[in-house]
């Protein structure tokens, strides 16, 4: 069946995008297949693991649970939007420095959940970090290095850019 799907428009990392896809297609699949933004990963596909975390209009969401039609008119932030001018985001640097990334599948989601956390709470305590990342599963690190990475990124002198990135809605 060849159907001309209506176009759905939204912004991704500041760029205006328009896609003509079935409205029930998952935002995750549109990002990866139609927009070739493969940083966002699929883990469980049922909202348990957080690998596909992105931000929509400043809210953290699992992109596997969003029919793309529901993203119409929204501003989406993905992991590809974290670095700027070839420079890694302080969170990315901290994950590298602290061993917060191992196999890497959970990492984009962890980074987006951490970005969201720091946007809401610029200096979270460890309990707040644990809650902020509770929806993101990692099978490699045992989580401690990930928590350490978030703490290290806050301590980083360039933490102003953390806040700037976090405030981008």
């Amino acid at each position, binding site marked *: 069946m060849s159907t001309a799907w209506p176009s759905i428009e939204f912004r991704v990392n500041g760029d205006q995008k328009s896609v003509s896809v079935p409205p029930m*297609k998952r935002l995750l699949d549109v990002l990866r297949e139609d927009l070739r933004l493969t940083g966002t990963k699929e883990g469980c596909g*049922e909202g*348990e693991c957080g690998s596909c975390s992105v931000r929509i209009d400043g809210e953290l969401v699992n992109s596997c*649970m969003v029919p793309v039609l*529901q993203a119409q008119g929204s501003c989406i932030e993905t992991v590809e939007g974290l670095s700027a001018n070839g420079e890694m985001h302080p969170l990315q640097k901290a994950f590298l420095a602290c061993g917060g990334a191992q196999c890497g599948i959970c990492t984009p989601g962890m980074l987006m959940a951490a970005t969201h956390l720091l946007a809401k709470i610029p200096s979270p305590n460890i309990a707040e970090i644990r*809650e902020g990342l*509770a*929806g993101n599963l990692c099978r490699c690190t045992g989580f401690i290095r990930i928590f350490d990475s978030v703490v290290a990124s806050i301590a980083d002198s360039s933490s102003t850019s953390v806040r700037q990135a976090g405030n981008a809605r």
Partner: protein
Amino acid sequence: MRGDPEAHHLVAPSSLDGVLSLLAREPGEWTPIAGGTELMVAYAAGRLNSKKLVNLWGLRDLRFVASCSESISIGAGSTFRDLRADSTLSKEFPLLAKAASWIGSIANQSRATLGGNLVNGSPAADSSPALLVYDAEVELISLRGKRRLPYSEFHTGYKRNVLAADELLYSVHLPKRFSQHRQYLRKVGTRRAMAISKTALSACALLEQGVVREIRLAAASVAPFPTRLCRTEEAICSQAIGPETMRAARAAVLAEVAPIDDIRSTAEYRRAVTANLLQEFLTTLLSGSENR
């Protein structure tokens, strides 16, 4: 098998009236979808039977928290993040705010709606025990008008409710008369975050000189749908809290709950732990310690 996006229609009327008109025109044909935290799981697994879905996400008429002197009204499209963020609700109805805080993860709370939690009707629904002890009313809407009924009458069986084919859950109303009540909510799951409850107990009670003047108890995961524990309440009401009442309460709750064995727990464990939770609540009444 994966969900096939081309096999499902999804339409997004721009207003609540538009949705209600569609439901009235083709009653039973359309499945409403809000935050998708339930339906998209079934969809991804290729077991979403509904071929025609109508979008509720983003409808402003369904997303509000309105407070007046006597009650608070919550639009069915409000997310659990909305509930956590509302200071009046957190102050007046702390059990509901607490339940909202442990529904899934932050990413789930930003999408999952109160209405979705109730209409989905899981026996383990996190918001239900709190709503039941707060004497919540639900308001339903269709082109025919609105109607209100106690939330305790909303569920009629496992994943069944009173909604007609052309109706939506519109809002939930909570009367503001629990500020003097001692309140309790505890969920027992496999881990603290992201777990579906093996059992959960919610309670509120009004004491006068050590005697229970009023008590409401509700539980999740111990019956085909979240339920008030009225016979257990009767065993406690008008009694002084002491060893005898504790024993009677345990016996009553063990007789009243009807849990099952499933992938998350066993009936035996659920019965024992539900009775322990009740005892924990009654013990807090005895000691005068703070809300959990």
